[in-house]
């Protein structure tokens, strides 16, 4: 999956799950998701689950950090990078 497919999937998930559909269209690729607590503890768990179930990406322990989850652009880059690595046994 290319970056231009990943980004809208993640944006839609965040907008619908945590922002009441983002009625004013405020969410951008650079909205600071951690700083504004859009990704709080539980929402982060739900996002990781979405990445795992819907995009088939397991984020390793070492990649869970503020830099990788700062905004949609960072998350999309992380996911795209992880997708490029063939899964074990694949």
């Amino acid at each position: 999956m290319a970056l231009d497919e990943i980004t809208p999937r993640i944006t839609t998930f965040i907008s619908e799950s945590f922002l009441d559909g983002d009625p004013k269209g405020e969410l951008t690729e650079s909205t600071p998701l951690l700083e504004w607590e859009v990704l709080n503890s539980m929402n982060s768990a739900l996002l990781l689950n979405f990445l795992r179930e819907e995009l088939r990406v397991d984020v390793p322990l070492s990649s869970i950090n503020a830099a990788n989850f700062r905004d949609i652009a960072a998350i999309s880059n992380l996911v795209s990078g992880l997708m490029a690595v063939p899964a074990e046994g694949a």
Partner: protein
Amino acid sequence: MTLHQLVIEAAARRPGAPALSGPSGSVTYGELDATANAIAARLERQGVRRGDRVVLWAGKSPATVAAMQAILRLGAAYVPVDGSNPVARVATIARDCAARVVVTNRARIPRISAELGLEVRYEELDGPYDPAPAINAATTSEDLAYILYTSGSTGTPKGVCLTHENALAFVDWAHDLLAPGEDDRFANHAPFAFDLSVFDLYVAFRAGASVHLIPPELSFAPVQLVEFLYLERISVWYSVPSALAVMMRYGGLLDRPAPETLHTVLFAGEPFPITQLRDLAGWTGARMMNLYGPTETNVCTFHEVTKADMDRDRPVPIGIAAGGDRVWALRDDGGVAAAGEEGELVVDGPTVMSGYWGQPPQSGPYHTGDLVRTLPDGSFDYLGRRDQMVKIRGHRVELGEVESVLENHADVAEAAAVGVGEGVDTRLVVFVAPRSGRDPGVLALRQYLTQHLPRYMVADEVRISSPLPRNGNGKIDRLALAARAGGSGTSSS
């Protein structure tokens, strides 16, 4: 006996033994002891003396724990504020407790000093640390050890003051109950400003065991928490049930055999749904304990989970008195609730706080505001709250505090917060009615909340609703809002 003596003694016995590990590195007891002395020397130069308060605004790291020890060694009390807290709240807390010094990472000092100016002094948490002689100021068990700030219904946080005696009554009790050894490996899931962490740190220190810090980014990351449990070979786990529920539901915890190292699982902070506890008990043979107590009493009751509990259709009891306390349920008519009757849980004994900072000392038993039912064996079942406090993943949140913050926003006419859902699925949802002609966005409101509240009090969802629904007597209809938010509603009133 004082709380900080535990590390001093462990360091004297086994200086090379592991004390703490976290993403930023590991330290032995000898290193922890030396760093504590080095930070204590810095703080002493800043004028910290016995009886002072020192705010510690930092993330989780061995250095943060060393700073707690340093503050105690000077006879002062530490006031832990999670690193993710907005600077405005740190300033409110520092002013409220008249802190002598704010200790934080170098990079944060300009932000906090811009708020507080010359009211307090500032000290860097970062190394390198110059070697310093051992410091251990004369301290009595009645001196304050730490102040934990919790959500206050009037819109400002309340500082719960705990003495060395309060903390040690719990730590000694828990140590005797579990008899941990020096090879035990404790997970630390809770933030340091949350009283669950008192168990992880000090019961481990008392045993000379090691503590493995879980950074906040990981604290609800399902697969990663499971990985942490195995990789760090954790033997004693303590967290809110929500964390375990997330690991079971999304992290595949139950898909692999339980780690052989894990022998004790403790949980507290909110009821653990019995179906989830059953799953956990079917997976591990570890001892399981439900601990209970508001911050004001540390832990005041406990229940060890039994096989018979698995037949229950509601969460396990909160159990019987712990920490040398006396607990009973007070009926509305003032009598003590007999078996089968309900009442408010009341606590008296050594773990009960000395009081709220800036208010008259606590005298006599503490009324928890929690409703319980007395069981035939003298233990208690938790039923719910008497007031508008809700628990979000174990953290207590006064809905009134969230609402009053929002209502201070220039574009907001009124706001109502509701807690919806059960257990791990509990969500804090706020509904906002804008002033006429104003249109604040949901993201803009979130940003505003994060500037004024600690992370756990920022709503899971912000929704615009104009006007807010009213019930027959003109009050905001919280039940309707809870229903709209997609749950039955745990909010009272």
